[in-house]
């Protein structure tokens, strides 16, 4: 094939990610379960790279969990998202940075809807104005926060204190990456590498010295399923799908799971606990479970940040086996201390502790 043709084909899998001046919107699940990850992202962008990332305290949930729980209509969520675009316009920003894969899927679905059904865009403009008096512009650039870490992955590699190498064996760490369905399965052109070659996480792993594990159920859903977890009677769906993934990855002996989406992270962490409670099943080596990290947590470790300031101790599956492989000299006494250094009680029955 001619070079020009190749370039044209691969252009579908490239994504333009803004370089600076982001309007930041948080995630309900991430700020609940991984607040340290959101704060590390802001610290890295603002203080390490010197970028401008603005947060308006008046932004809210995108209501995406309600939409995919089928209690929030499409017309409603379009106006909630449009309100965020209005806040962005009022603050003078054109690039949006979205801290959640569910939200990212919502934003991309709405933007595509407006493109194909312009009358829906006009309806949303009218709805938002009637409800709030606000007006909005469509963002020039839409990035998931992992896109931005991916963009700056080589800057992180350049500053790496602990590359993804097993210090005991000298081998690259075996890393499972889990993209999360709503990142690129719905609207592939919005994701780095699209749905066929998603490289947003594998690009980080490659750049930071690890080895990406390819396994049969690599692209299978984590099992969230919205109503399939939100309602207690349905949680067998969620657990069963997570176990399907772990059964598939287990023979490859992964050292860690790296996630893009907060829901996926929470389920792949908490369902490992549940599986162990149910019948003693563990998926890691030596009777241990597999630590599940967000991309900010992993970036933070690579850069040499204190794991306890990143919040790794608040997963069910504790990360000490991974920290030892990375050669990180962590302080166990600092693990459950307050911001001011006051000792807190030590929780019992955590996994890998």
């Amino acid at each position, binding site marked *: 094939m001619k070079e020009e043709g190749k370039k044209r084909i691969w252009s579908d899998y490239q994504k333009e990610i803004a370089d600076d001046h982001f309007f930041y919107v948080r995630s309900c699940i991430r700020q609940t379960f991984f607040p340290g990850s959101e704060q590390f992202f802001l610290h890295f962008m603002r203080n390490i790279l010197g970028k401008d990332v603005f947060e308006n305290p008046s932004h809210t949930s995108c209501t995406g969990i309600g939409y995919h729980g089928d*209690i929030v209509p499409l017309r409603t969520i379009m106006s909630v998202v449009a309100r965020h675009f209005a806040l962005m316009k009022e603050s003078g920003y054109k690039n949006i940075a979205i801290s959640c894969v569910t939200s990212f899927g919502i934003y991309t679905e709405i933007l595509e809807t407006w493109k194909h059904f312009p009358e829906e865009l006009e309806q949303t403009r009218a709805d938002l104005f009637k409800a709030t008096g606000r007006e909005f512009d469509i963002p020039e650039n839409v990035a998931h926060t992992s896109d931005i870490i991916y963009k700056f992955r080589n800057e992180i590699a350049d500053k790496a204190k602990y590359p993804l190498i097993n210090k005991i064996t000298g081998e690259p760490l075996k890393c499972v990456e889990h993209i999360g369905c709503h990142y690129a399965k719905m609207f592939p052109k919005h994701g780095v590498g699209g749905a066929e070659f998603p490289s947003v996480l594998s690009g980080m792993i490659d750049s930071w010295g690890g080895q990406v594990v390819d396994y049969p159920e690599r692209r299978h*859903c984590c099992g969230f399923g919205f109503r399939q977890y939100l309602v207690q009677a349905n949680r067998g769906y969620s657990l069963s799908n997570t176990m399907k993934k772990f059964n598939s990855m287990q023979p490859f002996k992964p050292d860690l799971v790296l996630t893009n989406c907060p829901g996926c992270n929470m389920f792949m962490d908490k369902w490992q606990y549940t599986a162990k409670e149910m019948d003693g099943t563990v998926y890691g080596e030596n009777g241990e479970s597999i630590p599940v990290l967000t991309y900010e947590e992993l970036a933070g470790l690579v850069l040499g940040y204190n794991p306890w*300031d990143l919040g790794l101790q608040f997963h069910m599956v504790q990360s000490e086996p991974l920290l030892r492989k990375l050669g990180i000299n962590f302080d166990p006494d600092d693990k459950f201390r*307050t911001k001011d250094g006051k000792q807190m009680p030590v929780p019992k029955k955590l996994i890998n502790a």
Partner: protein
Amino acid sequence: MENYHAMLMKDIRFEEGLNACMNCGVCTAICPAAEFYEYDPRKIVDMVQTGDNAEIEKLLKSDTIWYCGECMSCKTRCPRGNTPAFIVMSLRTLSQKLGFFTDSEKGRQQFAIKRTVGENIFKYGYCVATYAVSPEMHLEQGPIWDYIIDHTKEIYERLGGNIGEPGEGPLRKIPEATRVELKKIFEVTGGTELFNTIEKYSKEKAEEMGLEFKDEGIDNEYFNEVFKANNNKHTL
């Protein structure tokens, strides 16, 4: 009988999600719900494209439409560009609008989602927040969640949280004026109407089932029933 197919066609997700299904079954092959539930998205798409209103009514009253997890994996793989999950979402919306959702065990669960996630949106400005995830209702969160609930303030402080306080940061307090705006958006766009519809039909169903129903909160027999009931006839 109402023309359900015509009603579905008013939902742009239905219009966009259904082109022409050739029954190849790729959606079912890739579907996480079909993996464990008695569920076959291919059959749903095949049926709705016939436009048979009697069959669509059966579907709207069934457990079947509530098995999908909306992962949207089917959207990527359909060789005809259909999105079975969008079709299911439009069926769910119509089922609630017509009050058919309370006819099935899985459909009745919409009341539980409305009373939890739905109420959280108005109360806190978030669908999910630490203080709204009770350990008793989420046992799989494990001992770490009990610990986080017992020590929320100290833990979030160390991680840069701003829990329940004004200003920026994780779990900051969403200003009252903002929550008023959210409520107005719901009123203008049909969100409030859907909430009220779920409440109305759920109350009627509770009476029919002889279960206690309260106009607020989750401390009532009907909530408990729909949140936990499982007749164990859903899986393969």
